[in-house]
């Protein structure tokens, strides 16, 4: 009887936490969307990942097409500046990190020639004690 109670409580708790985390990601994504202003067209995707600590990294590969300006918005939590994001080229040259600019929540990239790159995001250890949802949004406009 007790065993079933614990199991039930565990399942309910996991479902509850999962829903809490989802709601958290949704509200962060809404806040983050404000940085993709009207002159940029969204790429139609919402990149999100739950990060357990500041050591953990979310990563994805993307193509930046030439003659295009991209805006990247990177958010975690209810305020700006909690998420560090880095962009590397295909040879792992660091092209940009917002860490050098007070964890700016958004940045524009004017791309001359098409290139394949990797975008990484992690929580700033100085601002995040535990885990959090990382959200990255991308918008573009013709140069």
């Amino acid at each position, binding site marked *: 009887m007790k*065993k079933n109670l*614990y*199991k039930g*409580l*565990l399942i*309910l*708790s*996991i479902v509850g*936490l*999962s829903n809490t*985390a*989802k709601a*958290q*990601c*949704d509200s962060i*994504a809404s806040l983050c969307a404000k940085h993709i202003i009207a002159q*940029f*067209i*969204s*790429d*139609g*995707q*919402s990149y*999100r*990942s*739950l*990060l*357990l600590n500041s050591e953990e990294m*979310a990563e*994805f*590969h*993307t*193509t930046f*097409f*030439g003659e*295009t300006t991209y805006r990247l918005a990177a958010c975690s939590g*209810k305020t700006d500046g909690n998420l560090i994001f880095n962009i590397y*080229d*295909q*040879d792992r040259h660091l*092209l940009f990190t917002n860490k050098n*600019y007070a964890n*700016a929540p958004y*940045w*524009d*990239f*004017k791309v*001359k*020639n*098409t*290139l*394949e790159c990797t*975008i990484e995001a992690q929580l700033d250890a100085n*601002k*995040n*004690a*535990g*885990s*959090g949802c990382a959200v990255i949004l991308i918008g573009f406009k*013709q140069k």
Partner: protein
Amino acid sequence: MNIKNFKLNTKIIAFGLASVLLHSCGDPKPAEGETGDDLADTDTVKAVALNVGGELFSVPSPMQTALLIQKSGVAYDKAILNAGNKNGQYASDYSKSLNLGIYGADLGYVSMYNQTQDALQYLGAVKQLADKLGVSAAFDQNTMKRINDNISNKDSMLMLVGVAYRASDAYLKTNKRTEISSLILTGGWIESMHFSITAYNKKSTDEIKYRIAEQKQALGSIVKLIRSHNLPDAAELVTQLEELAKIYDGITTKYNFVEPTTDEAKKTTYINSTTEISISKEQIDQIAAKITAIRDKIINAKS
């Protein structure tokens, strides 16, 4: 882990999690300076998080290709689009999802050329498929009204369609229907490739040629995405995409790193690297044939 330990852990975890939840329910306001999004740092939370997280994939927006084609001076051609009145024939979620991606790209294309009447038709097709797939939250009354109100304003239309598709992507990911989201992205990408190929046949510019050639990474992401869901309906699609990837393996690129420059005041970084890409006429023809075969199968589906 033995059974005793498991029992003990179950109790601790259950009470621990219940406490975390009760705590989060009773105290919604984070202290000043806190991010407010912290979750309890336990192994169980880790399991939940890993389940939600995992590898992320990026697929280029089909509207970006439509924009390039329109700027290249290729004339509007409605005949290249999937007919807007076919949405009723797509019965399975698999077919609906792929064609929702295709119709979304078509909506972007007609909007790019300011074709108001056609935009209304494709908007209707998108709305109907989205409703059938249960993603109408992304195309709710308010969004539809905003799109309708701006249907003759190209820039607003493109912005709103992008936002609606992002909302649909977010909704599907939140509700663990990532296979639908992946298929929508795949449909959109295939349609954008179809735009490029038909445009290149009409006007063979280097910009369009290179755009066709520059899709290797996007295709790699799509193959991984679709394969990861193990969808029985998608077995043939995966095979076709893998065959397409083999053609792309033959395209050569030479990347030259150039140090980026940053204008901090404008919050802008200039990516100055260059890429030389080499694609033959034969390779373009092979890609075109494969894309046409994949697309025909999707848009002519009757299930």
